[in-house]
């Protein structure tokens, strides 16, 4: 290859190399499931994989068979933008591949051991009997569970919100949900069960939350599975729900302004990895994880 020949094809070769890098940046997370699920809904995995492969082919075509004699105009701007993106994506991956984190939670947060603990007493305003529940009997898997003879349907917190919002649907009377417990200052320290749902990607994610009662003894920031039921919020609680939660990673926060969760049984669970919700059903069996 002469020097002139190499020069005449240099721009195409350069862009071919960049396309290969971009293709790799799509194939890599699609194959590394955990990395992908921290950024996008896994339903897009095959699409991303195909697109990455096609970009790779385009890159190879330009790299190995550049068009000589033209196309030598410097395309520095777009090349610089693409290279900058590759650097940023690498930073994001490095960040993602570290230990898991929930929306807005500190990375140093320790993972909770899977250990049942009794539900804290329910407020007097709520006529729910504080029962000495046999917490160890709570099964860890399955679409429904029975505690003290009561059946709780497992569903995720977004599914619960969706059912409550739907005209012709009814949420189960007793249910079990998995969520992170926080007590944001903006809510006056009231317990909030929330989880981030990703419809497409992190940019359109939603923090879905319910105010909760009966969780007073549980430390803030822990992940819990709560067996319980819904109860109307008091006027004061409605005001707090309207104030909303502080920003996490999610684009929006939605807290139910009319109903809250009354915990009847609760157990600590490990933080899901990744902590996001991707699948939503409007009938049993729910995509409860």
């Amino acid at each position, binding site marked *: 290859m002469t020097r002139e020949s190499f020069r005449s094809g240099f*721009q*195409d070769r350069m*862009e*071919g190399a*960049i*396309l290969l890098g*971009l293709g790799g*940046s*799509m194939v890599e*997370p699609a194959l590394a499931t955990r990395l992908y699920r*921290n*950024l*996008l809904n896994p339903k*897009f995995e095959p*699409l*991303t994989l*195909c*697109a990455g492969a*096609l*970009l790779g*082919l*385009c*890159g190879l*075509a*330009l790299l190995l*068979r550049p*068009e000589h*004699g*033209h*196309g030598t*105009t410097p*395309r520095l701007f*777009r090349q610089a*933008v*693409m290279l*900058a*993106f590759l650097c*940023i*994506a690498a*930073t*994001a991956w490095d*960040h*993602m591949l570290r230990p898991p984190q929930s929306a807005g939670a500190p990375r140093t947060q320790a993972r909770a051991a899977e250990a049942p603990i009794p539900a804290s007493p329910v407020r007097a305003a709520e006529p729910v009997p504080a029962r000495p529940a046999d917490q160890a009997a709570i099964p860890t898997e399955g679409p429904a569970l029975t505690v003290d003879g009561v059946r709780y349907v497992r569903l995720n917190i977004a599914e619960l919100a969706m059912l409550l*919002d*739907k*005209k012709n649907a009814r949420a189960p009377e007793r249910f079990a949900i998995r969520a992170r417990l926080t007590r944001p200052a903006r809510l006056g320290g009231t317990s909030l069960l929330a989880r981030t749902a990703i*419809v*497409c*990607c*992190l*940019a*359109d994610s*939603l923090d*879905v939350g319910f105010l909760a009662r009966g969780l007073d003894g549980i430390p803030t920031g822990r992940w819990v599975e709560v067996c319980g039921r819904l109860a109307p919020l008091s006027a004061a609680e409605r005001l707090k729900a309207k104030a*909303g939660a502080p*920003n996490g*990673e999610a*684009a*929006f926060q*939605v807290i139910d302004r009319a109903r809250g969760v009354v915990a009847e049984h609760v157990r600590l669970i490990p933080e899901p990895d990744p902590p996001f919700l991707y699948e939503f059903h409007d009938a049993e069996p729910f995509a409860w994880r």
Partner: protein
Amino acid sequence: MDPAALRTAADVMTAIVLEAAPFLLLGSLCSALLATFAADRVFLRLAGKKRPAQVALGLVAGLAMPTCECGAAPLARRLLRKGAPAGAVIPFMLAGPVLNPAALAATWTAFRGDWRMAAWRALLVMLPAAAMGVLLSAGRDANILRPDREGAASEGCACCSGRAHAPGSNAAGLLLDVLRRTGREFLDMGRFLILGAAAAALCKTFLPQAWLLNLSTNLWLSVPAMLLLAVLMSICSSADAFVAASLPMIPQPALLAFLALGPMLDLKLAPAYLGIFRARPARLLIVAPAAMVFILCMGLGLAGALE
């Protein structure tokens, strides 16, 4: 600046690019296939049709070529280069991301089977798209495309820019030609996607959305607030309905403003318009659809049509 916030911005930017890139690539592939295989005369024949027919064809083309807004822009540029009239291409580019089965089904699902929201959304996109098609095809300049050195380079050499570049006669040669064109087109449009994704990620991370949502009680404030949110958040047209549906406190005209404007204008599309079109059409594409959606949604709200 908070390093954690910067990391979040990097995550969001990467997520937006990874989500949109396959659709941009699909648009680039369609563009390359058109450039390689479609004869210019097909599109020139379209230019001979009357303007209402062009606009109508552009509006329904989204049903045949379902693509999101990221894929529509490179395809529109290619169609214009092949001689297709702006009266058809602009309505396709603006309305196609909403008037396709996937986006309409997503809107219907997100609003729990309320077909009225999907229908209003389609109408609120069709009207500005048609108006822009008429406006830009009636302009003084026949060519609304920006002469672009990099774009020309991506076409091949200056001597044959805009025409099929003597593709190889055998299947391997044609495939190579399509792949090279797809790659160049993707890189050329991808820079706008990346710059827009960076801007959207920074807005999402550093601008609190709460103050926009707090304007929800007043129609005069909530409609412009949701228009602004649609531009700043740059959410894909297949996902934005789910975000809108999660905001029940916002009046429906404002939600429709969010749903109608997002696919026509956001932080990814604005730089793309400026890169593809001459200054006047680009400015019109940025300002006019937003103004039209504002007027239409305010009209709907004040008339109580959505009660």
